[in-house]
């Protein structure tokens, strides 16, 4: 344990690295003098939002920059060579794979679809170490076993499309470690995976790192994951490392305003009824030269100096450094004042009263809804007789993994899928199947939908003005042009966008802003009921808080009712009144939000809760991971029934299991 808190020697150090791209004739400085030191056998997490330059920075370590980007300054010292000076491919080949390996985000496209996975691993071994094919094959099978792939011999000859997302990521990791690299860079390896699978992959990486004494660089935007896996954390913003330190220090005593803001805007830490702390605005435009502290324009408590001079790296402790003028002696009293204020606000926030269900009237009832899809000649049940009600003014969350049918339920309610079995009753009338035109028109105004991917849900070739007023055009909800423009302006201000953006095209906005346009488009029709299909899962942490606050504000002001579809339980806790957990097309448990967190009954709910990463290293370190295996219920003889075991707490179980649950309560 050296004096700077590191276990092993420093094996890689990036000093004031600057990377520039020329894009559409202008140069963009993606990384502005970032420095980072990697020590042997440790896991360094780099946290930052999209556009902060974290993946560009790490890609420069192995010379994988895009063809229009180049390192324009600084050094990359590794084994007393300066990688920044590498020009020819031959030089990089001595590093890539053997010394530094990398794993990418989307497992679906990382493997060559037309070659067996075994071949893709063996070729690495033979290429680097020249081992004969037979022996290399054995090694490959060993590695496959090590990454947790059952019966590796048969799976060796299979093709990538025959593996699930999680399995494929395990194969990618196996390929990366096949040549025993010294440093493994993981660029958001689990973002595209479901929560339960993500937990298993994180455990796998931790075990491998300990076993092979590798240095792992873990890039992510999810602080929960950081808490789970990282020893050291560096926070990156607008192309600079603004704060670095041990995981414990960063989570407990963060110093840089951006890091503090990131931590506070985590939904898991939110207090119900009050707005989440959210960082205003959007990341800075890297085309322009940035003066002073890049975060200053978005930091309400910024000081004047922050706008003029770029802060140097201050030492907070032996292992903790931060690049903010707050650490300067002059700023001491300003810093203490802020700390006191934050503490006071913390106590003030008392959670608001839970939603009272006694005298709320039912807005929407779903009675044994089943949706079937035809795939080839086989029929496949996406939703299997689901029952639930939504009360006026509440937010019901529907949580489940990908492919569980949650989106299908949302679309069935919005009549996008029209051939469904069972009944959907809205405001007392049946709305699925054939209904007359007038009723359909009315429905279109009363029910609206918000979509997941901000990039795909806006028409690239239409101006924002048309996008928002598309609904108005359809039903001529305006008297004349001025009236329409007025309506558009109001709704834009409500969602926090300046009205002079209305003549721009969608691709000129950031993810968060595009999502706000989507929301504006729905709410301009002032609906009663909104289906939000994973509105925040594609956004960065800070932007999520903004959208959640916006949705809550809309609910408060307009008395909306939400069906909130998500796959992350922790995020959902803050916003929802009741939560329904869905698995393979069937709702397994439905309960009031806090009740579900206190007494999860169904094994699947328990497994979900245990897999969700919590942004506190202590909690994460000693958390035990439960796995759910659907075979544990024997439903052949006694089919499960949807019973209300406690008032408002429903669970799908048969007689025998119900007995067990009652004992637990």
């Amino acid at each position: 344990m050296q004096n700077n808190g590191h276990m092993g020697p420093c094996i890689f150090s990036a000093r004031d690295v600057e990377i520039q791209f020329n894009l559409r004739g202008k140069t963009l400085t993606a990384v502005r003098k970032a420095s980072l030191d990697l020590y042997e056998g440790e896991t360094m997490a780099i946290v930052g939002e999209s556009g902060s330059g974290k993946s560009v920075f790490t890609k420069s370590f192995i010379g994988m920059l895009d063809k229009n980007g180049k390192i324009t300054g600084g050094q990359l010292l590794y084994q007393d060579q300066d990688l920044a000076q590498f020009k020819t491919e031959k030089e990089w080949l001595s590093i890539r794979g053997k010394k530094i390996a990398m794993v990418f985000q989307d497992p679906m496209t990382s493997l060559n679809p037309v070659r067996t996975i075994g071949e893709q691993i063996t070729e690495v071994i033979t290429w680097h170490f020249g081992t004969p094919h037979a022996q290399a094959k054995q090694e490959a099978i060993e590695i496959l076993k090590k990454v947790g792939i059952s019966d590796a011999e048969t799976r060796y000859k299979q093709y990538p499309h025959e593996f699930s997302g999680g399995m494929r990521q395990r194969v990618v990791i196996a390929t990366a470690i096949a040549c025993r690299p010294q440093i493994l860079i993981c660029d958001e390896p689990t973002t595209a995976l479901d929560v339960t699978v993500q937990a298993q992959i994180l455990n796998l990486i931790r075990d491998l790192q300990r076993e092979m004494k590798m240095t792992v660089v873990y890039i992510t935007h999810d602080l929960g994951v950081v808490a789970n896996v990282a020893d050291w954390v560096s926070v990156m913003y607008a192309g600079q490392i603004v704060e670095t330190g041990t995981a414990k220090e960063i989570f407990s005593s963060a110093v840089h305003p951006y890091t503090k803001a990131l931590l506070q805007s985590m939904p898991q830490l939110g207090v119900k009824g009050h707005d989440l702390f959210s960082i205003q605005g959007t990341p800075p435009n890297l085309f322009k030269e940035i003066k002073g502290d890049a975060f200053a324009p978005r930091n309400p408590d910024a000081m004047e100096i922050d706008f003029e001079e770029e802060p140097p790296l201050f030492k907070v402790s032996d292992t903790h450094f931060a690049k903010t003028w707050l650490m300067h002696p002059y700023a001491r009293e300003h810093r203490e004042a802020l700390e006191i204020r934050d503490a006071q606000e913390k106590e003030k926030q008392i959670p608001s009263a839970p939603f009272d269900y006694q005298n709320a009237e039912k807005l929407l009832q779903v009675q044994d809804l089943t949706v079937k899809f035809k795939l080839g000649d086989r029929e496949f049940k996406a939703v299997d007789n689901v029952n639930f009600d939504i009360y006026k003014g509440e937010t019901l969350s529907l949580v489940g993994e990908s492919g569980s049918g949650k989106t299908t339920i949302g679309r069935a309610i919005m009549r996008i899928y029209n051939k469904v079995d069972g009944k959907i009753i809205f405001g007392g009338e049946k709305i699925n199947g054939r209904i007359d035109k007038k009723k359909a028109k009315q429905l279109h105004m009363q029910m609206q939908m918000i979509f997941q991917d901000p990039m795909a849900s806006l028409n690239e070739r239409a101006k924002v003005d048309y996008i928002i007023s598309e609904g108005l055009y359809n039903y001529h909800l305006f008297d004349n042009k001025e009236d329409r423009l007025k309506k558009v302006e109001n709704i834009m201000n409500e969602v926090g966008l300046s009205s002079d953006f209305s003549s721009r095209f969608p691709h000129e906005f950031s993810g968060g802003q595009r999502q706000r346009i989507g929301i504006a488009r729905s709410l301009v029709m002032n609906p009663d009921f909104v289906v939000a299909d994973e509105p925040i899962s594609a956004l960065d942490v800070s932007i999520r808080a903004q959208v959640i606050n916006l949705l809550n504000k809309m609910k408060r002001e307009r008395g909306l009712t939400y069906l909130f579809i998500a796959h992350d339980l922790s995020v959902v806790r803050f916003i929802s009144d009741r939560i329904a957990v869905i698995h393979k097309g069937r709702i397994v448990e439905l309960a009031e939000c806090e009740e579900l967190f206190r007494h999860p009954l169904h094994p699947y709910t328990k497994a979900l809760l245990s897999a969700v990463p919590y942004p506190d290293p202590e909690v994460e370190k000693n958390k035990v991971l439960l796995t759910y295996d659907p075979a544990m219920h024997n439903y052949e003889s006694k089919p499960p029934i949807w019973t209300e075991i406690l008032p408002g707490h429903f669970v799908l179980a048969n007689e025998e299991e119900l007995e067990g649950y009652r004992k637990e309560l």
Partner: protein
Amino acid sequence: MEKKMPELNPLKFRAKVFDQMLSEDTGYSNYSYWRSTIRTFFKNKAVVVLVALIVLIILMSFIYPMVSPVNPNKVALKRTMWNNRPSWEHLFGTDGLGRDIWTRAWYGVRNSFLLAFCIALSDVGIGMLVGAIWGYNKKLDPIMIEIYNVITNIPSTVYLVLLAYIMNTSYLTLFVSMASRGWIVEARFFRNRILSIRDNEYNMASRCLGTPMRRIATKNIIPHIISLIIMEAALCIPYSIGSEVFLGFVGIGLPVDAITLGNIVNQGRASFTLHPYQMLLPTIILCIITVAFYVIGNKFADASDPRNHV
């Protein structure tokens, strides 16, 4: 590792009032799809030259016939006027009947280009409409695929000879027979493109808002495939001119006194070894047009792909 500390004014260490709009400024990148498509398109020097050439040739072929006194079909009775070498008086020389090839070439370019343009218009026009309808409702699929198979399997010569007989050789006949097959091929091409756009979320959003099909097509679908339409049209023109020349060779082409590049080239071919200039010069113009349109079509396709807007 402390950097030398510049002397600082303690006064600066006070909170500055927060400007919300400054935080929203994302740096308006005034990137518009069409402007950067055009910019990438014309960045390539060769394209600029070819476009200029094409515009020049087409303008000349439309203006020259109106302006020139020479009647392209005027036959010279004196044998000395037949098969003259290119001279100042006859820039391209005269053909087997003493007609001025220079004038005939320009009439030919105009007629060939008009014919090819109409065919391109009809192929792409009808093709897009049928493709849109076909792409939009799934139940049409089996029937349309059957129609596609049948039409493409019937040899085009059957149409040509039959139409040439029923409607006697004229521009209209050639147009109908050449356009009778092109549309279904274009329709399939557009159907595949529209299928990939149709299932995007923004189309689903429009449907949720109750936007009628008509406006979804005009506002959501067509703007995305405009660049494809232009590319297909540009590529269709050289193809049509090429098949017109082929028809001339096979003998089902246009009426005899119609002046098209195909006819001139075929008439020149008969006495090629003796008077190469008769075929060579119109061929050069023909090649310039077909090559130019082919390059423009391909380069436009590359330029209209957002990935290349870097």
